[in-house]
């Protein structure tokens, strides 16, 4: 009789078979979902020209005027103060990433989304923004206004 032979052998074999089957299925599922998870991660887009950019020509901005320009893959704000000084800042609000604007009537930088206010050096002075805006360096080279990232920043 087969059943009376060795009562311990059968469950052991069954456990082995179960382990092989379950392990095989598990491995297949991993092999199936791993590529999908990797596929879902978008390839990194190289940040081209993100270090230095010509924001505008001299004379394009009037005192107390401003302009949004492209700095790498994000917008930045160039403004000419009433005193005739160029300032460049990141234009992405530190609150929830709306693009800020210069308010010539308030002489301040304002975010329309949630009424955040920054002063002209980018400090968050009112409303929800948690951090100041990043400052960039501005040079006038010939008739071009060149904006670059601050070294070590």
């Amino acid at each position, binding site marked *: 009789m087969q059943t009376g032979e060795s009562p311990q052998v059968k469950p052991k074999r069954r456990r082995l078979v179960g382990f092989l089957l379950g392990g095989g299925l598990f491995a297949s599922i991993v092999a199936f979902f791993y*590529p999908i998870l990797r*596929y879902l991660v978008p390839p990194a887009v190289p940040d081209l020209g993100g270090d230095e950019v010509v924001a505008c020509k001299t004379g394009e901005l009037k005192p107390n005027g401003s302009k949004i320009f492209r700095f790498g893959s994000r917008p930045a704000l160039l403004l000419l103060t009433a005193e005739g000084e160029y300032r460049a800042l990141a234009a992405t609000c530190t609150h929830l990433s709306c693009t800020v604007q210069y308010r010539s009537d308030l002489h301040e930088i304002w975010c329309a989304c949630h009424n955040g206010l920054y002063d002209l050096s980018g400090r968050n002075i009112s409303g929800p923004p948690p951090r100041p805006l990043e400052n960039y360096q501005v040079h006038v080279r010939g008739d071009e206004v060149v904006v670059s990232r601050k070294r070590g920043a």
Partner: protein
Amino acid sequence: MSLTARVRNWLDERFGWKELTEPLREKTVPVHRLSHWYFLGGITLFLFGIQVGTGILLLLYYRASANEAFESVQYIMTRVQFGWLVRSIHSWAANLMIFTAFAHMFSVVFLRAYRKPRELTWLSGMLLLFLAMGFGFSGYLLPWNTLAFFATKVGTEIAGQVPVIGHSLMVFLRGGEEVTGATLTRFFGFHVAVLPLLTTLLVVIHLALVQYFGMSVPPGVETRWKASPAEARTMKFFPTFFLRELMAWYIALGVLGALAALSPWGLGTKADPFASAPAGIKPEWYFLFMFQTLKLIPAKVWFFDGEVLGILVFGVAGLVWFLLPFFDPLGRGRGRRMVLGAGIFALTYILAMTVYGYVAK
């Protein structure tokens, strides 16, 4: 009480889970030497599921415009991790799905599973096959490569030869007089919205009908079982047949993965509407038998245009094939023999013309 049992109880208390799932637990599958043909429909359904999944993945990166479509597919295949695999699986599974759908259809014809009371199951299945071919035709254009561009030009031109409504049909399909970016947008809309909606509805109807009538037993086996009921054997659908079906799906997935990895689908060159058609333009294999037939018909037969005659013949043949179950009961066995003959003829014709289409220059 285990967690699953508690969840089941919870559902049961609210809307009678046990009664709802009763038919599935009671469902049986007949066991005989032709039982393995029952797997084909399920495999086709599985491949459709793969298409939905990989299709959604492709939508994450694909851009449907004449300027960007080719580049976005190129991007998927070269930059996105495992993008080549996802696209390759989508293309291979599409072809395998059409193949298994055809095999399923012919198995139904030769096992006479279409006969009363299952005529509606056959009709819904035939509509699903047309939709699958529509998926193939519209999806073929989406990478916007040269082959697809000309295949679409020819395909829509043929649609334009249909008497009376042809021209309007062609303009509707193309979104204008020519195949342009407008065609691509349209085909994209058909491919990812219209066809999936119709297909999902029909699949539900098809499966509900299969469930309602139960599995058909081939007539030969049925008479034997009627003569000696002791011989009749069945297996439970859950879990016996279902696990076997899962095994078949697992094998299908293996075949699919192997094909996609070892023979990745190519992309070709970007379509240029103002370049000459390259040599060896061919449609997808499942349209090849029709394409080859049209090539063989002379330009003028009696007072018909060759193309128009071909389309009429295929139209009538398709309609007869669609209505196949209704010919079966005619004339005490005459109808049955006619259907069998039509099945053998169709299978031979499609095989022969497909092979011929591949061999012919």
